């Protein structure tokens, strides 16, 4: 009977991934059929390029220790949003003063728009994310050491 054949298939856990992947294919096709999707005009944290700035492509304005203007969801919840973006450490200030081509390094160095998002306005994401790393590594380390 077809029902018992289906149930035999799903009761074997080796087929589980195949089942899930099949479902993903179906939904992906559904998504393709529902294209084109609208792209909302007013995005959070939009990118803006300021050619010629030493901080390019991450120059979001604002002199150090002032508030840069960034679009966050709830400005009232993070009153100091924008300070991190505008801040330059002495090292990154030095780099910014002397070359035009180290924008990424300067912004990745403490301070900058991504630090703002990752640590400040969307900090909870990073808490969860680093916990995932912690847990996954815990599993790997436990399995690695078990019995040795």
């Amino acid at each position: 009977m077809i029902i018992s054949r289906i149930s035999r298939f799903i009761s074997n856990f080796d087929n589980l991934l195949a089942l899930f992947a099949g479902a993903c294919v179906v939904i992906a096709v559904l998504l393709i059929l529902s294209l084109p999707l609208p792209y909302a005009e007013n995005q959070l944290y939009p990118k803006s390029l300021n050619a010629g700035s030493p901080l390019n492509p991450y120059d979001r304005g604002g002199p150090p220790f002032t508030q840069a203007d960034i679009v966050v969801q709830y400005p009232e919840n993070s009153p100091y949003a924008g300070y991190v973006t505008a801040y330059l450490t002495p090292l990154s200030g030095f780099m910014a003063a002397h070359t035009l081509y180290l924008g990424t390094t300067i912004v990745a160095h403490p301070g900058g728009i991504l630090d703002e998002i990752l640590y400040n306005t969307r900090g909870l994401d990073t808490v969860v994310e680093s916990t995932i790393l912690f847990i996954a590594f815990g599993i790997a380390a436990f399995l690695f050491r078990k019995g040795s």
Partner: protein
Amino acid sequence: MSSVGGATLAHLPFGDIVIYITPFTLTLFLLALVFTILVIASRPERQLDITFGADRIITKETGLTEMRFRRFMAIACGLASMGAMLTGDVFDFALFTSLVGITNVGIVAAVKSRHVQNAAFQYGLVAMAGTVPLFGAAAMVAATTGTLSMLELAKEATSVVPFAVKAFLVLGVMGEGMAPFYAAKAEMFRAPGAPYVIMCSLSSLLIFLRVIEVVLTV
């Protein structure tokens, strides 16, 4: 739709990620809390196995280090489900859900049975594949609406998130928790250590219940 889980009782802002509490999320949160406390408080049971061909019963003993590790994983799983119950942000929900997935793998991966490990691996594969629709859907929500906050999305009278995107999100959550219910979880659940194994099942159900609220809200 704004009042899916009842009236909002409280807000707890973490920057752009606002945790909000409704009677529905509160109920689920309390359940996760109660079971996490149970995990902390209880010792694992000693599972009995019948030996075929002989009239005797053996008990499976759980080693101390294994037990400690699994208890740690179960507590982490409880915390992850609590977070997933309360968070008010689509991407944050996706992250908490994948944390639930990986802790579920951890709870059973430590068992020294080949069969259980095999099931855990298969489940882990599905959980990992599940992050694809999960994160993908969250990103598409952000692109089509310009926001990730459920509170903002709930304000719209009619839902602006396309149906297929919602289906993608649900599929991701199913991959993290629900889909393995059929087979892999059943094999995983043969592992001894009831309080910990229950956490797997509880967290899967909780995230599935929450995603229903999420797709109805946004």
